[in-house]
């Protein structure tokens, strides 16, 4: 098994920002977006996500798998939410319904303008969030995760855990492939599992056990090797690479904070940003 991370250097505008600033921006944006149900605001955030996306130089080939996954999930969730169940997390949706059409058979079902508009709003909202994050694997260097989160206040040991995890990924992928091959050589066939679901799961043991136990055994040596090179000492640790905020990073963080604050104040104090249906749609 050969592992490839989606990351590669793209020399895009997005990559010129400090990864910490980008994380802060992405996470604060998430918390901002969830405060709104007004499609006018949500369209703004969708626009921001689209702008970020377009600056990453991502190709369709790289992301189509992710998009397929997202559209599938979104379809299931929104279809069920709008059609099958009541569609009512927001009381405004069901408060003064304007019936679009109603049927009696095979089940009694009423479609309202509000429901349909709510589904559209949901699509915009979910898209703006997923699009915000879909760029992460392709534009953030996995080797910088450790120092990034160290720079965001995580302790040395936790930050190093991230680096170490990425170090193990290719090794474990290779080991998985080896175990797979070794068991195939013993006549084991993963794509030809027999029996009910319980038997099928139990038949995963010949793969799961060696891979896991082998990794635990190598862990023993790794612990020793790290302690012997002074890892357990409680003194201050130097990180070989450092990150530095530039003006644009500060600006990005400042923007994220301001928008978050606005998003908290607007709905609560001024009652703006809640569910909104364009007046011209309502008869």
């Amino acid at each position: 098994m050969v592992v490839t991370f989606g990351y590669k250097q793209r020399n895009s505008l997005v990559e010129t920002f400090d990864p910490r600033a980008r994380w802060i921006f992405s996470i604060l944006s998430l918390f901002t977006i969830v405060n709104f149900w007004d499609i006018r605001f949500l369209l703004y955030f969708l626009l921001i996500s689209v702008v970020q996306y377009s600056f990453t130089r991502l190709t369709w080939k790289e992301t189509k798998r992710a998009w397929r996954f997202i559209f599938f999930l979104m379809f299931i969730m929104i279809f069920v939410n709008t059609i099958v169940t009541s569609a009512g997390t927001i009381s405004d949706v069901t408060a003064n319904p304007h019936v679009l059409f109603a049927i009696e058979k095979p089940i009694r079902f009423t479609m309202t303008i509000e429901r349909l508009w709510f589904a559209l709003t949901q699509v915009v909202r979910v898209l703006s969030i997923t699009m915000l994050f879909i760029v992460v694997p392709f534009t953030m260097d996995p080797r910088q995760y450790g120092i990034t989160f160290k720079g965001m206040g995580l302790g040395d040991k936790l930050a190093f855990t991230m680096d170490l995890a990425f170090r193990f990924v290719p090794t474990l992928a290779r080991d998985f492939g080896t175990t797979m091959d070794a068991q195939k050589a013993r006549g084991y066939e993963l794509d030809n599992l027999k029996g009910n679901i319980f038997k099928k799961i139990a038949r995963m043991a010949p793969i799961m056990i060696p891979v896991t136990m082998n990794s635990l055994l190598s862990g023993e040596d790794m612990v020793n090797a790290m302690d012997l090179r002074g890892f357990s000492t409680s003194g201050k640790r130097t990180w070989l690479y450092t990150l530095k905020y530039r003006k644009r990073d500060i600006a990005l963080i400042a923007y994220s904070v301001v928008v978050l604050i606005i998003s908290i104040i607007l709905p609560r104090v001024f009652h703006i940003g809640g569910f909104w249906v364009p007046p011209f749609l309502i008869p």
Partner: protein
Amino acid sequence: MTDAQPLVVRDLSFQYTRRDTPAIQSLNFTLNPGEILLLAGSSGCGKTTLIRCINGLIPHAYSGTLQGVIEIFGKSIQEMCLAEISNEIGTVLQDPDRQIVGSFVLNEVAFGLENLGLPREEIFQRVNDVMDYLNIGFLKDRETFQLSGGEKQKVALAGVLAMRPRILLLDEPLASLDPASAREALSIFRKLADDGISIILVEHRVEDVLAIHPEQVLYLEDGKQVYYGDAPGLLECVDYSQIKLPATIVMERSRGTPMEPFTSSLQGKDGEALVEFEDVHFRYKEDLPEVLTGVNCTIHKGDIIAILGHNGAGKTTLVKHALGLLKPTSGTVRLQGADTRKSSIAQNAHTIGYVFQSPTQMLFAQTVRSELAFGPENLGHPKEQVAQDTEWAIKTVHLEEEMDMPPLALSFGQQKRVSIAAILAMRSRILMMDEPTAGQDYWNYMAFMDSILQMPGFDSILFITHDVDLAVVYANRILLVDKGKIIADGKPHEVLAEEERLNQARILPTSLLKLNLEKLPLTGRFMRAEALAQFA
């Protein structure tokens, strides 16, 4: 302080809390500046425990009862914490894959220095210095995962040396290296010692280590010190069936009781074609270079084939094609006349039994018995036959008593034998083994190689190995692989006699090979040193 000896060990004993017997008992030795001490003995003799006592893992990470004295430059290590000890003593563990912590070479070498909290400039300086010293500066920006075994070892060593220890402990550093890389590593160790670092080198490849003239040798058996002195003295006293010694010494010493030359139940005489490779090319991905670059060869009934070549030459890739685990990018592999592209691996497994290198990557069952039954049951063998075949397989590797133990609770050497038995029980016609002797004691692997090769039932046996002597003793045909091609194919005394071709494949002639070539006019075939004694 400067006058004190780097390391003094007096009356050292240790017993792990969970064990009933001491792992090491009353050891006494000293290490002088710039000296190499070879620490030898079979698995379970206490080598690893002694290393742990010296580098402080005992008692800091492993609990038990420690008695006696260990002094580093005149200071008892009981007064030192792990960090202080690691400033003086650097340890390189057996498997570099299990000690490299960085995704990139630079990070890996800098790791210890980062932990010490040194200023960044100094870290970069030291890292550059040590990489220049080991001539690996060009690796700096490479991913550690992509390195070859020899490169990994050097990177791991660099990471330890960057901390500037005055004593170096090397725990079986040659285990995962091919002979050429091993020789290079050994010459680095010698250079380090000559530059003033004191080294303890744990290794059971005694013969190889003798080439760099260790000043002292400590030989352990069952945790006890059997021999302590200079290298020549060791050759006179240890049991040569336990530890592999230079062939000339073995021949001399076994003169009184020479052994019969080994004969296998298989006799290579151009029998029926079992596996055919026809202009096989292979690459993992389109944008990667070819691993196999045109292989043509046929495995016949009666062949005992040793595949030799350095790491990365394509040996394992070649063998995986026979079973169909990999399919050729172009060309054809036929197993008993059938294209491997058209049959499933499970079907092919009826014909070929393939033992992988590492047993821990395949053992999973609750008992040895069910582990051995796994393969035959997958192949759909009837119950009574499975029971019979597992019994027979376990006897072959001498592990009858462990039949109801969980395989994962056995020692590494035993696990390896279980993994071989698991394939034997499938009763395939052809047996293929990848590095069958890796991690095994000399006595053990010679014993099971003897019994496997004398065992009736196989039409052909093939093994991949770094150990030229294994090929010398057991093979009747040798394939020399280099850069994805078979560069020589023939009888051992034909293939191994051509020094130039061996150089090309980066294979080093061993003392046993040299002795056999010398005696060939008398013997007419290759054999082990004990058998050569008849012709001495």
